[in-house]
Every structure is written in structure tokens, then in C-alpha cells.
């Protein structure tokens, strides 16, 4: 797997752009897909948005000024594409409908093979507000540093820490309440 700098260097050559993009795909296609999938839940939606993300990256990579890491720049595009996708749907469908469809994908999709605990965790994450969901996913599943997350979500580190803290607290409450109800 190529280093980001090598990818950028190759992309800056006259004839090496496609090769560089192939390296970039090799390195980032799966992480980006999983990131988008955790936001959109549906496999088909995540497929479409991932493709759009990489087409956008292809079109704008020549303007990438290296003011942030390539990795966080890519994640920012993927995150924005995912949020735009949801916002476009919100113009035609209610948020309740979109969320219930996401929940449905967790229970009825062929492409969810997690165990009960994983399903419950995903269902609980879906109850969080959008920003907290994003922060929780990036921290919990991807172990992203707050400084990097700050570049991706364009939010201060302090606010991100607060969001993560709130998200964990809400999820703990949910699971504690569920456990208490079972007793």
C-alpha cells in the first residue's frame, strides 16, 4: 500500500494520474465504504455514495492543497456526500421515514451479519443526533484522533469530545435501561 505522499506525487505527473488514483482506491476504498455504510446503513446507498465520493475526489484531487492530511480530506468528502445524500432524501421523505428505513435495513438486510449485540448497538447509535452519530462512529469504530476528526467534521476538538461523551452517556443509558427492563 502506497504512502499518501507517493500517491500525490504520482498524481502530479502528466501521465500518472490514473495510476495514482488506483493506488488511492486501493488504500481508501474500503475504509471510505465502511465509513459511509455506518452513516447510511443501506448497502446500496453506501455503494452509490462511495462511488460519488471517489468521482469527486478524482475531479478535485488536482486542487488539493495539502493543508490537511489526504486521509482527513477524503473522509471529509465522504462525510459531506453522505450528509448531502440524507438531506436530499429529507426533501422528499420525513426524517422518521428515513430513520425507520435505516432500522429496517438492520433487521431485514441480507448484508448485515452481525450478532444481536452488534445489531442492538447499531440500533442504539441510530437514535443519536446526526453529529453525535458521526463522532461516535469515527471514534469507536475507526479510532480516529480528535485532531483528525476536527479536520473531517470542521468542528473544534472540545466540541467533539463533548459530543462523544454525550453519545457514550446516551448509549450507556439505553443499554442500562434495557437490562433493567429485562430483570
Amino acid at each position: 500500500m502506497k504512502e499518501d505522499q507517493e500517491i500525490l506525487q504520482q498524481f502530479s505527473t502528466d501521465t500518472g494520474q490514473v495510476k495514482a488514483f488506483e493506488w488511492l482506491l486501493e488504500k481508501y476504498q474500503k475504509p471510505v465504504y465502511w465509513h459511509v455504510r455506518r452513516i447510511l446503513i443501506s448497502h446500496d446507498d453506501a455503494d452509490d455514495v462511495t462511488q460519488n465520493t471517489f468521482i469527486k475526489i478524482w475531479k478535485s484531487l488536482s486542487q488539493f492543497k495539502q493543508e490537511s492530511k489526504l486521509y482527513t480530506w477524503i473522509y471529509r468528502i465522504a462525510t459531506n456526500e453522505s450528509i448531502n445524500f440524507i438531506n436530499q432524501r429529507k426533501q422528499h421523505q420525513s426524517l422518521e421515514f428515513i430513520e425507520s428505513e435505516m432500522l429496517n435495513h438492520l433487521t431485514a438486510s441480507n448484508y448485515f451479519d452481525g450478532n444481536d449485540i452488534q445489531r442492538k448497538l447499531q440500533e442504539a447509535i441510530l437514535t443519536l443526533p446526526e453529529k453525535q452519530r458521526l463522532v461516535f462512529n469515527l471514534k469507536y469504530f475507526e479510532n480516529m484522533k480528535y485532531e483528525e476528526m476536527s479536520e473531517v467534521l470542521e468542528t473544534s476538538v472540545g466540541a467533539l469530545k463533548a459530543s462523544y461523551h454525550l453519545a457514550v452517556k446516551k448509549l450507556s443509558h439505553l443499554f442500562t435501561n434495557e437490562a433493567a427492563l429485562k430483570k
Partner: protein
Amino acid sequence: MEEKYTKPNGSEGFQVPSDFFEQQKHQLLHKINQGGFSVPKSFFEDQKNLILSRIDAPKKLKVYYNKPIIWIGIAATLFCSGLVGYYVISSPQKQSLQLTNQQIENYLIDTDIDIEIIAQTVSIEDNDLQHILLENINQDDLLIEL
């Protein structure tokens, strides 16, 4: 190849393949990290090829058609407006739409999107639509200029 087995500490005589725990750890971590989501077999390879085919396209294709073939206009409008465009070809279950005019027509009729029919000239920048047009349209009806 002969598989190597080891007796780890606490195994009480049971054996496991020598790389078993490393493999198991890798699999579990992978699964946990994806949060339980999975994808169809060979999905990433197919998606990579699709993305590469989308960037490896001529930048513009102009299509002039002599007869008012309504669905070309519909398809072109949807593609150009970005409402359906890539979606038609990128979702695996809809790829069959590339096969026949009838299937595309049926799909387009099923959409609720407002349709503007383009009657004369269509300028298309989407490689996927080029593909559909070239594969499915009667060449006599078209003058295609690359």
C-alpha cells in the same frame, strides 16, 4: 501442504493450527470494526472497476438523434440532472437496465420524477449513459459525435 499444529498454554492437550489465534483475532477484529455490516462477494473489486470506468471516460459525448425517441430524452434528462443518472447503472440490481430499451422504459415510467423530454440535442458527460446509448439505440436513429 502439511498444516502445523501447536499446543498453547492451558490447552490441556488440545491442539490448534499454529496461526489459529492470530487468524481468529484478525477475523474478530475485522468483524467488530465493521459493526456487523457485510457486503456481497467481490463487491469491492466490482465497485473499484466501476469507479475506474467512470473516471476513464471521454469528457463529452454529443448525441443528435433524428427521431424523437422519447426514452433517450428522458434518460438524458435524468442523467444530466443528476437525479437518476449514475444511480441507474451503479446499483447492482439495476444494472440489467442496460440490457434493453424496454427495461429502461419500464424503469423510467416507474419513477415519480418530473420528466422533461429533450427533443433535439443532448449533451452528455456521463460515460455510463454513453454506454447505454451505444449499446441499445438503433444506430440509424443517431449521429454520434465523440
